[in-house]
């Protein structure tokens, strides 16, 4: 049987290797190599556009009012995919909490924290505890910056949310244990749902025209609607239409979702450790 699976693997690999040579090289936009040279001179010349990426590069900035073309693709042109991916994260968090709450029982929900004489949590040294507290605001501020400036510079909801969740990871590691798991879980869970609901409600708000329509973009400088000049610009925060809203919603969702996973995993490890008698993580 192992031989058969090995053979099947080699056949599949063979198919893929024979195909490699026929693919386009990375960075070669399928015969449209002059995209970037034309980029600055014209505005929306639709006659020459032949592929989807070409269209995004030429029209993305003007249509969505976002300096960052990647964000305009992720949240505007393929916003429905992003909604699906956010739903996948929500799904994973739900599944993990369903599975882990069957391990975490009774006394593990209410953690009694061992503290030393000065009130610091025991376990890690004091350097780690104080260092974490000092690091935390900086990490959070950087994450929030990434989320809010998603439509101007590299970053966005998923990345910023993940950076903010590293703050939670630090807290969990340096044994600032969560005192009441149920309450913490409910809080995070509420904000996770809130983020996703804001995303989908923003989508419905454009429903007069179509779902996820960027109805705020290029709105004569009112809320998030500054008309930005083509090409390099200093970056106007008040632009991008619904993109910053969606980005923030996803940021909140990712931060809360990953935090739930981290907190539950640490507690489940503790529960497993105490069941086996010893070794606390």
């Amino acid at each position, binding site marked *: 049987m192992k031989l058969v699976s090995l053979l099947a693997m080699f056949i599949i690999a063979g*198919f*893929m290797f*024979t*195909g490699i040579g*026929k*693919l*386009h090289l990375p960075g070669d*936009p*399928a015969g449209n190599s002059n995209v970037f040279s034309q980029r600055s001179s014209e505005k929306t010349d*639709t*006659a020459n*556009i*032949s*592929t*989807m*990426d*070409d*269209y*995004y590069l030429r029209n993305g900035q003007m249509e969505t009012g976002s300096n960052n073309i990647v964000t305009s693709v992720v949240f*505007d*042109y*393929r*916003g*429905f*995919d992003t*909604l*699906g*991916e956010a*739903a*996948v994260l*929500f*799904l*994973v968090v*739900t*599944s993990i*909490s*369903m*599975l882990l*709450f*069957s391990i975490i029982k009774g006394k593990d929900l209410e953690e009694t924290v061992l503290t030393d004489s000065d009130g610091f949590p025991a376990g890690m040294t004091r350097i780690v505890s104080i260092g974490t507290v000092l690091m935390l605001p900086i990490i959070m501020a950087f994450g929030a910056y990434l989320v809010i400036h998603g439509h101007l510079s590299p970053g966005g909801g998923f990345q910023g949310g993940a950076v903010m969740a590293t703050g939670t990871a630090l807290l969990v590691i340096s044994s600032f244990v969560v005192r009441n798991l149920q309450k913490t879980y409910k809080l995070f*869970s*509420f904000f*996770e*749902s*809130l983020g*996703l*609901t804001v995303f*989908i*409600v923003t*989508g*419905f708000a*454009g*429903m007069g*025209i*179509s*779902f*996820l*329509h*960027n109805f705020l973009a290029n709105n004569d400088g009112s809320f998030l609607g500054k008309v930005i000049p083509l090409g390099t610009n200093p970056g106007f925060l008040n632009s991008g239409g619904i993109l910053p809203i969606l980005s923030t919603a996803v940021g909140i969702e990712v931060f809360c979702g990953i935090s739930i996973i981290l907190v539950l995993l640490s507690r489940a490890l503790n529960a497993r450790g105490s069941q086996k008698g010893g070794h606390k993580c």
Partner: protein
Amino acid sequence: MTNHIPVLIITLPLIAAFLQPVTGFAGFKLRNLVIITILLVLNGLLFMLVPDVALQGKTIYYTMGASDPSQFTQPGISFPVRIVLKIDSFSLFTGIIVGVVTLTTFLFSTGTVKEDKRKSYFSTLFLLFTAGLMGMSFTNDLFNFFVFLEISSISGAALVAYRTYRKHAPYAGYKYILISTIATTFFLFGVGICYAQYGSFNIQYINSVLAHSYLDKVAMLFIIVAMAMKAGSVPMHMWVPDTYAEAPASISAMLKASGMVTLCAMFRFTFSLFGPSSSGAGKINYETLGWIVIVLGVLSMFIGVTMALIQHDVRRLMAFHAVSQTGYMLLGVGVGIAVFAKGDGGAAFKAFGKMAMVGGIFHIMNNAFYKNLLFLTSGVMERRFGTRNLNGMIGLGHRDTLTTVVFMIGALAIAGIPPFNGFDSKLLIYESVYKFSPVLAIIAMFVSVMTLASFMKVFYSSFMGPRRDDLIVEGAPLTKGTKAGLIILAALIILTGLFPGIIVDGIIEPAVTALTQIR
């Protein structure tokens, strides 16, 4: 508002799922009521589309975020730059299966899944599963299909493991997620190859510029294998009995629906994505492809039913029958594919190929109904006796009249006995396959006989015999919701069986026409 129906069908269950953790404290009854209302609204929206789409043959497009959502492309550009949903008769047919199955399954689960704190996970995952299947039915975008495939796979795996207190349930969930991940990765390879060549994800656009090169064939192989894997066709069927047996009964029915949707998607990719392109450049060899599908189908039929005969575990038995029934659909549609582009100007396709495809597609719908019913009744049996082993069950017919009657209906339908719906589609398959190759038709009939034998075994050992109340571990009567779910499905089986003409002319025939249309 009517032109927003496609997106509403997918987003309504999504938003309901996102709000589950918040609305969890509103009480079980209210929450169940809200979910049932949403599923009813979904079914209503789907049937609102039937007159336009199925009867008049219209195709509805919905472009996400565009200034005119009903247009396939934006003015002045020859290809779609945004995600497009597409509803034609075939995707509507898939959507109707999902709608009916989710509604009846959720009605059943209100009475059988214990109402406790964990139920909010169940309803969240269930709604996301529904949204995933609906998205897979209606999307016209390969990457969007991948996203919804992921949603349905992960929620399915979590739901298989829902009864975490049982020893094997988490393992079954793990097996399902492993298989699903392999299938979705294969699918992603295929999509990546398509995107690298044509710079688009849109199924209809890729088909219009398809060059039928060597790379396209590699992509086609990956995509079709991934779909067959998720549908549980024979060389990739080993996960089916394990996961179906450990999942709660309602989730086995949902997994079956997910298998049907992936099967429909496989047929759609065969014709709409890799079919003959409008540019006329090259063709895939439909005869070879058809024979591959036929061989897969015959193997699934035969291996599935022979494995089912020796099972003592009622759920594993039904899971192997699920594999075997998948074989019928593959056989019917495979014959259609094999004669689709024959050199005789479509004479063979008109003579019996189309009928075979109608039979295969009709069988998908019928199978979704009766298999669902059988899985749900097996849930009742498991609840009553506290075991899935047939040796531990006896005399249920004395207690549960309704369960006995609907089980009988389901068993006769799956075996293809006349007044029920399984007969109609099987007859179409036998007749048309006989004209293609008599041996295949004889194998199909033989498998039907063995199916009947194996379900008679289940019926005699668990419903007949003396009344033994000492074996019953859970004697509480079925709730209204549970009964409603069973009765709706039984009624659908009988109605489809008595008036197959209406269904075939109204839904199935337009679906096959939409599927095989050469643009």
